C-alpha cells in the first residue's frame, strides 16, 4: 500500500503542534505530483545529458592518483622512487610540494594533506604521496614503484582504550540519584553500532584546472563549495579570488561529500599546480570505500529509572564514539549524538556523558543523521526493552513519556512550539494497525512455542519456515545546526531581478538529488506571485554565488529557504513600492528594463528567543525539532536467521512540506538507508584496515531488500522560518533501525543490541537465551 500526500494550501506558521496538520491521504492519484513542478534538472538526468565530474572533458588533462599507507600507524621514514623507472613523464607530489599549510581545513586542523617524511601515519589508506600521468596505464604501472619506508608503531584500535579525546560533553543533571532512588525499576543496557558507508553511487571526484595569475579552479562532486574554497586558500596559499570551486552534477552525498572532498580537491590541485595542466582525481569504488569517511561507530550505555506506570524518572547515559584517526567533524557529530541520546522523552533527571576518541582507523565523518541514528537506535531499543519488562505496549510507554508542548529537555530547553511527537506516534500506530498486528504476531509466537516442536535454542518448528514481527520507534531530530552554529556561520542567500527581467536565486547550497534546484524556485516564485518556471537557479560556482553555509544538517530548505523567502519578500516590496504598488508579477519586467538589476542579499539573523550557551550546554540546543515515527514489519527466516523487512509505515513531521513528491522521496530513501544500517551494512576491520572495501562485499539494499513504504507527512510548522519548514533529510534515518530491531524481537523473541542484526547475531542471540521465541532478554 502506498499513500500519496499533498500539503493543504495554507498553513499558519504560528500554529503549535497540538493541532499539527496530518496531511490527508489520497489527495493526489497514483503518485504523481499534480500541480507541482517536476525536478528541475530531471530531463538532463534522464537523457544522460547531465554532466557529473567524470563526464567533464578538459583537453590535455592528466590522471591523478593517491599513494596511501598500508599500515594503521607508523613513522614515515622516506618516500623512495624506484631508480629503475623513468619518472620524467609523470609528476609526483609529496608534502614538501605544499605551498601553504599542510593541514586540511576543519574544526581542529589535525589532518595533514599528505603525511610528511618524519611524520606519523595514523591510519590505513592515509594519503602520503600523489602521482599524475597522461594516461591511466602509466599510473597503474608506476604507483607501485613508489615505496614508503616506514617504522611501525603500535596502533590504538579500541576507542575506549584511547587516551586521546577529540571532544567530550556532560549535559543535564537534576537529582539523578534521587531519581533512581524513587524509581520502581532500574534497567540497564549497552548498545553498539559499527561503521556505515554513505555509498553514494557516484564516487568522489575532483578535477583541478590551473588558470592565469595563480588561479586554481576545481570542478567536483561536493556538498559544501565554501568548505573546499577555504581549504584551497589555506593549503595552496591562494587569495579568495584565486581559489574557485564549481560544483558538477553530484551523484549523492548523504554527508559523505561534506568534509571529505576538501582533501581530494587539494590533492588534485597540488598535482595540477606541479604539472601545469588540469588533473582528474576520480576515485574508484574500492578507493572510495577504503579511504573516505564513514558513520562513527558508537557504544551507548543506558541506566534508566522507571516508575511502574512507565514514567521515566532518571536517565544516566554514557556515549563513546570512535572518531578514527583525525578529528574531522567529530566534536559536532558527538554533540548532536549527546543531545539526542535521551530520545524524545520527558524525564526530570537526566545525565548525559559523551566522549569521542582517536583510534588508528580511517577518520569518521558526516553521514545523514550525524550522530543521532547511533544514539536513537540505543534509546529506542532500550525503551522497547523497558516496555517489555513492564508488560506494557511499546506504543503506550511512548504515549506516556513523549514530549508535549512546554516540556523541558536535558539542556533546559522549553519546547514552546512545533512538538509533534504524540502526533506522529498516534498516526503511525493507527496507520500500521500496530496493536492489532502485534496481537497477531504474539499469538503466532505462542502457537510456535505451544507446538512443542522447538528444540532448545533454535526456533525452527516442523511447519513454520519464518516468523513475522512488528516494531515501533519514535525519534526527534534537531532542525538545522546545533546550538549557535547558525549564528556563527552567518549564511547569505540572494535573489536577483536581472536586467533582462529574469529572476535568479544565488545560493551556495548544492543539489545532490534531494531537490534544491526544484524547491527554491518554488519557494521564491510563490512569494513573487509567479510560476516557478520563471525563476532560475544560478550554477554553484564560488565566483558567483554567496556562502550560504554547507549543504548539511537538513538545513537547506529550512534555513537557506527561509533566507530566500525573506529576500523575495524584500525584492517584491522594493519593486512594488517604486511602481505605485502594482503587483510584482505585472511590473517586474518593465521595472528591470527601467531600473536595471535589483539584487537582494539576505543574511541570517538569529531566530527570535532562541539562545544556547556553548560553554555550559544549556539553552535551546536547536531552534525546533522534527519528529518521526516508524513501524516496521519483518519476516525472520527460522532456519537462517535472515531478516526481510516487508512493510514500513513512516510518519514524519517536517514542519512544512514544500514539494510532496520530493519530500516523500527523502523519507523513503532515508528509511531504506536505516534498514540497511539495521540489517546488512557492516564494515569488518582487521588491524585498522577495512576488509570489505568493495561493493561486492559491502552490501546495501537492492530493490528486492526494500520494503513497501507508506509515507505520511505531518506539518507542525516552526515559527522562526517564514515558511515553517524544519527539514526532512535526516529524520527518517534516525528511526528506521530501532523499528526493525523491535520487529525482529517481536518475531523471534530476542533483542539484538549491536547493529547490524545479521543472521549470525540473531542466531547467536537465540542460542544465548537458550529458549527461542520466549521473549527473554538476549544479548548480541
Amino acid at each position: 500500500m502506498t499513500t500519496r500526500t499533498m500539503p493543504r494550501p495554507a498553513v499558519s506558521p504560528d500554529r503549535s503542534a497540538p493541532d499539527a496538520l496530518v496531511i490527508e491521504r489520497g489527495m493526489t492519484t497514483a503518485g504523481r505530483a499534480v500541480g507541482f513542478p517536476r525536478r528541475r534538472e530531471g530531463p538532463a538526468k534522464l537523457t544522460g545529458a547531465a554532466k557529473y565530474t567524470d563526464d567533464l572533458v578538459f583537453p590535455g588533462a592528466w590522471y591523478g592518483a593517491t599513494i596511501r599507507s598500508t599500515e594503521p600507524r607508523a613513522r614515515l621514514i622516506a618516500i623512495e622512487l624506484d631508480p629503475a623507472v623513468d619518472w620524467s613523464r609523470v609528476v609526483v607530489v609529496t608534502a614538501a610540494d605544499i605551498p601553504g599549510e599542510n593541514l586540511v581545513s576543519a574544526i581542529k586542523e589535525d589532518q595533514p594533506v599528505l603525511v610528511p617524511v618524519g611524520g606519523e601515519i595514523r591510519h590505513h589508506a592515509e594519503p602520503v604521496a600523489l602521482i599524475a600521468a597522461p594516461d591511466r596505464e602509466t599510473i597503474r604501472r608506476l604507483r607501485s614503484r613508489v615505496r614508503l619506508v616506514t617504522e611501525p608503531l603500535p596502533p590504538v584500535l579500541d576507542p575506549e582504550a584511547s587516551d586521546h579525546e577529540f571532544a567530550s560533553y556532560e549535559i543535564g543533571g537534576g537529582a539523578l540519584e534521587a531519581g533512581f532512588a524513587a524509581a520502581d525499576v532500574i534497567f540497564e543496557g549497552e548498545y553498539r553500532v559499527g561503521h556505515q558507508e554513505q555509498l553514494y553511487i557516484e564516487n568522489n571526484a575532483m578535477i583541478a584546472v590551473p588558470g592565469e595569475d595563480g588561479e586554481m579552479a576545481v570542478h567536483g562532486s561536493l556538498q559544501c563549495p565554501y568548505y573546499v574554497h577555504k581549504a584551497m586558500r589555506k593549503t595552496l596559499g591562494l587569495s579568495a579570488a584565486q581559489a574557485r570551486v564549481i560544483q558538477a552534477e553530484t551523484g549523492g552525498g548523504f554527508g559523505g561529500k561534506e568534509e571529505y572532498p576538501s582533501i581530494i580537491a587539494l590533492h588534485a590541485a597540488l598535482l595540477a599546480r606541479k604539472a601545469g595542466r588540469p588533473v582528474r582525481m576520480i576515485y574508484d569504488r574500492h578507493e572510495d570505500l577504503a579511504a573516505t569517511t564513514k558513520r562513527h561507530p558508537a557504544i551507548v550505555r543506558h541506566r534508566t529509572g522507571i516508575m511502574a506506570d512507565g514514567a521515566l524518572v532518571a536517565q544516566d547515559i554514557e556515549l563513546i564514539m570512535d572518531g578514527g584517526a583525525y578529528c574531522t567533524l567529530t566534536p559536532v557529530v558527538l554533540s548532536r549524538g549527546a543531545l539526542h541520546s535521551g530520545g524524545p522523552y520527558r524525564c526530570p533527571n537526566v545525565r548525559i556523558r559523551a566522549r569521542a576518541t582517536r583510534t588508528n582507523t580511517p577518520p569518521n565523518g558526516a553521514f545523514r543523521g550525524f550522530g543521532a541514528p547511533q544514539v536513537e537506535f540505543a534509546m529506542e531499543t532500550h525503551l522497547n526493552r523497558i516496555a517489555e519488562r513492564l508488560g506494557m505496549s511499546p506504543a503506550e510507554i511512548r504515549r506516556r513519556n513523549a514530549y508535549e508542548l512546554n516540556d523541558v529537555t536535558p539542556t533546559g530547553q522549553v519546547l514552546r512550539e512545533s512538538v509533534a511527537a504524540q502526533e506522529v506516534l498516534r498516526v503511525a500506530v493507527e496507520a500500521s494497525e500496530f496493536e492489532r498486528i502485534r496481537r497477531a504476531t504474539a499469538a503466532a509466537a505462542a502457537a510456535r512455542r505451544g507446538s512443542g516442536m522447538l528444540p532448545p535454542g533454535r526456533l525452527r518448528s516442523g511447519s513454520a519456515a519464518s516468523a513475522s514481527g512488528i516494531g515501533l520507534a519514535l525519534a526527534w531530530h534537531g532542525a538545522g545546526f546545533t546550538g549557535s552554529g547558525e549564528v556563527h556561520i552567518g549564511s547569505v542567500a540572494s535573489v536577483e531581478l536581472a536586467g533582462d527581467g529574469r529572476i535568479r536565486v544565488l545560493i551556495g547550497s548544492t543539489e545532490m538529488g534531494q531537490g534544491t534546484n526544484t524547491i527554491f524556485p518554488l519557494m521564491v516564485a510563490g512569494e513573487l506571485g509567479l510560476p516557478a518556471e520563471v525563476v532560475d537557479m544560478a550554477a554553484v560556482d564560488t565566483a558567483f554565488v554567496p556562502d550560504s553555509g554547507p549543504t548539511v544538517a537538513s538545513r537547506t530548505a529550512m534555513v537557506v529557504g527561509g533566507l530566500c523567502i525573506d529576500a523575495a519578500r524584500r525584492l517584491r516590496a522594493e519593486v512594488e513600492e517604486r511602481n505605485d504598488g502594482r503587483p510584482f508579477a505585472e511590473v517586474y519586467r518593465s521595472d528591470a528594463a527601467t531600473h536595471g538589476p535589483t539584487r537582494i542579499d539576505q543574511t541570517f539573523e538569529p531566530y527570535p528567543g532562541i539562545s544556547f550557551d556553548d560553554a555550559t550546554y544549556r539553552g535551546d540546543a536547536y531552534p525546533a525539532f522534527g519528529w518521526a515515527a516508524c513501524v516496521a514489519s519483518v519476516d525472520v527466516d527460522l532456519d537462517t536467521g535472515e531478516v526481510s523487512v516487508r512493510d514500513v509505515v513512516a510518519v514524519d513531521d517536517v514542519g512544512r512540506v514544500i514539494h510532496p513528491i520530493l519530500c516523500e522521496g527523502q523519507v523513503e530513501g532515508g528509511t531504506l538507508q536505516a534498514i540497511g544500517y539495521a540489517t546488512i551494512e557492516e564494515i569488518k576491520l582487521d588491524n585498522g584496515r577495512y576488509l570489505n572495501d568493495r561493493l561486492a562485499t559491502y552490501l546495501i539494499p537492492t530493490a528486492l531488500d526494500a520494503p513497501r513504504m507508506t509515507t505520511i507527512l505531518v506539518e507542525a510548522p516552526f515559527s522562526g522560518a517564514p515558511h515553517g519548514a524544519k527539514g526532512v533529510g535526516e529524520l527518517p534515518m534516525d528511526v528506521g533501525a530501532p523499528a526493525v530491531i523491535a520487529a525482529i524481537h517481536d518475531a523471534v523473541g530476542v533483542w539484538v543490541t549491536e547493529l547490524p542484526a545479521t543472521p549470525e547475531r540473531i542466531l547467536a542471540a537465540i542460542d544465548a537465551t537458550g529458549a527461542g521465541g520466549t521473549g527473554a532478554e538476549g544479548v548480541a
Partner: protein
Amino acid sequence: MSAIRFLVNGAPAEVEVPGMRRLLDVLREELGLTGTKEGCGEGECGACSVLLDGQLVDACLVPMSQVDGRIVRTVEGLSLAARERGDLDALQEAFLEFGAAQCGICTPGMLMAARAYLDAGGGPDHDAIRESIAGNLCRCTGYQKIVEAIAAVAAGDV
C-alpha cells in the same frame, strides 16, 4: 588492436582498441557517450547498464572483443523516436512524474534495466519489477518510486 564495428543507438561506430578494453570506457571516452556511468567497475551496482543486442549487461564487464558486429543501446538512445522529436519517452516521463530520479547517477542504468524489462513484455506487477531492477543499486529513492514509475508505463498509464 583491431577495428571493432558495431551499432550504437542506431548509428554505426568503429573503434580501434585492444580487445579487452571495456565497453564502458569506449562508450564514455572514444564515443563521448557519458550518460552511461561507472559506479563500481565490478558488476555490482548496475550504473553502467546498457543493452547489448537487447540484453541488459554491465558495460564495465563487457570487453570490446564481444561487441564486434553487435547492437548497443545506451540511455542516449533509450528512445530514438522521442529523441528525434526532442522529447522524452514514456519511461522518462514516468520517472519525472513519479520522482523516480533523485541524484540521477543510477538513473541511466535503471532506465536501461526498465527498458529491457518492458521490451520483454514485463507487466505492472511490483514484485516482478523489483526482480528486474535488483541488479541496479539506488541509494537515494528506496526504489519505491522507481517501481511505481515502471509499473505505470507497463500498465500504459503514462
